[in-house]
């Protein structure tokens, strides 16, 4: 987590715009994130939190600035980056009749990594099973994903993103559908992953269990970074509250 390491994510004066939009949503953002850091991104609705996650994994077009992730240029090597970066999307809604079960969805996390024209192997299936065990959804393996509750679907998507053994994990409000107990063990799992060197970036307002090491808080407002501080876990709640307060007063 120290600055003599090479950052895994390095954004320099980044602007990101949606197709057809007149103004960029992300404006002049610079951010260096180091291996194993646990980063919480906060800020009001529409601040650009989702947009910055999708800038990091190259799903959105960077109009200005330089972005490097895992040593690769985001604009030209986006696909190679995404094979090694997990992403749990914020908004999902699945057709109740969609012909996929939980086991397939979790395994799907590894498809990019496996690559085209190659079959899924035993290792892939084992990793998917382990991920389901971690999320305690192995009993849902053969259930159609469309017929599960929002929280169960959320757990399947989190399992999917960890099945690929990501070096960076991006989570966009992953707790919004989860019950208290689940929020706790997912938070613990994320802390454990960070301790093993995975960089965790999580957009969230509520934390029920934080890892026992320093946490970096990045607050966003109107497409810019308004605060970027590292603090101890017991300061996090106050910090997050003060961000929301500052923004409301602004």
């Amino acid at each position, binding site marked *: 987590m120290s600055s003599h390491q090479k950052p895994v994510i390095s954004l320099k004066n980044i602007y990101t715009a949606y197709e057809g939009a007149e103004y960029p949503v992300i404006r002049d953002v610079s951010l260096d994130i180091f291996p194993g850091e646990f980063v919480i991104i906060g800020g009001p609705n529409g601040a650009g939190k989702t947009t910055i996650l999708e800038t990091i*994994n190259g799903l959105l077009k960077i109009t200005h600035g330089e972005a490097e992730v895992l040593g690769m240029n985001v604009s030209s090597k986006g*696909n190679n980056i995404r094979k090694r970066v997990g992403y749990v*999307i914020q908004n999902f809604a*699945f057709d109740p009749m969609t*012909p996929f079960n939980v086991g*397939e969805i979790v395994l799907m996390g590894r498809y990019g990594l496996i690559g*085209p*024209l190659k079959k899924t192997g035993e290792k892939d299936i084992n990793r998917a099973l382990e991920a389901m065990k971690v999320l305690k959804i192995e009993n849902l393996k053969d259930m159609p994903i469309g017929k599960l509750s929002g929280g169960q679907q959320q757990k399947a998507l989190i399992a999917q993103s960890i099945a*690929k053994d990501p070096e960076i994990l991006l989570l966009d409000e992953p707790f919004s559908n989860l019950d208290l107990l689940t929020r706790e063990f997912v938070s613990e799992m994320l802390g454990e992953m960070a301790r093993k060197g995975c960089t965790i970036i999580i957009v969230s307002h509520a934390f029920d269990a934080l890892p026992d090491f320093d946490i970096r808080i990045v607050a966003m407002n109107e497409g810019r970074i308004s605060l970027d501080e590292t603090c101890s876990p017991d300061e996090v709640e106050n910090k997050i509250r003060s961000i929301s307060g500052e923004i409301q007063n602004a």
Partner: protein
Amino acid sequence: MLEFLISNNIVCHAVEAMLFASLSCSILGVIVTQFNVSSIGFTMAHAAFAGAAIGMFAGINSTLAAIAASVLVALLIGPVGEYSKMSTDSILGVFFGMTMAIAIFFIAYMQYLGMGMSATALLFGDVVSLYREEIYALAGISVISIIFVYLFYKEISALIFNRKIAEASGIPVKPLYYGILFIIALAVALSLNIIGGLLLFVWLVTPAAAAYQFCHSLKSMFIVAPAIAGTVSVIGALAGLAWSLPVAPLTAIMITSVFVVSMILSPKRKISYRKPY
């Protein structure tokens, strides 16, 4: 190819053509319907239709013209949407109207000029006057469709589940997407003479929609949809020729009937208290 089964040459060729056209269209139809790009399939079918009409009018190979028009529209949808800042659906509506107008314009004009016979084949299909090469091409596109789905099954299934999640997982979504559109363009253009521009959509959508009613996995849909389409098309061709009925419209009605029956019988719509879900 099936001469050993059916001795009458015309009937044999008609059955072969219907079988191969239905296999490729229904396999690709699973992707088209599940990936929610029915309107793209629809528009491409009509672009092929317009291309064929132009080709026929200009005296160039109408199948090649159909392929060209269909591919062109597939390639234009994305960029035109970006340029005009309109939703894909509106763009497709515009393209659809335009291709339909072009096709009907040329067909009507050809009828006026006395070139009417071959032009109606474009509208409603014709299984009787086929070239051997057309049947080989249809067999070829069926094989290509099957191989494509087999080779890229993982990627296709992820894309169908959720495009954003597929892309985030590192699947090369764009090349795959354009690959799918290109194969659809080929299948649609080659099936045009047999099934007709007005009915192509039935083969692209209805067998997959019927399979969806009772398939719990994507894999089974890729088997059930062509099984339905192939069986019904062969029966349709035999029945149509035996009783001198228009083959493609008859078969289209039969496929639609299968869809209605499968929807009524669909286990997915039933509530079962004995099973755990």
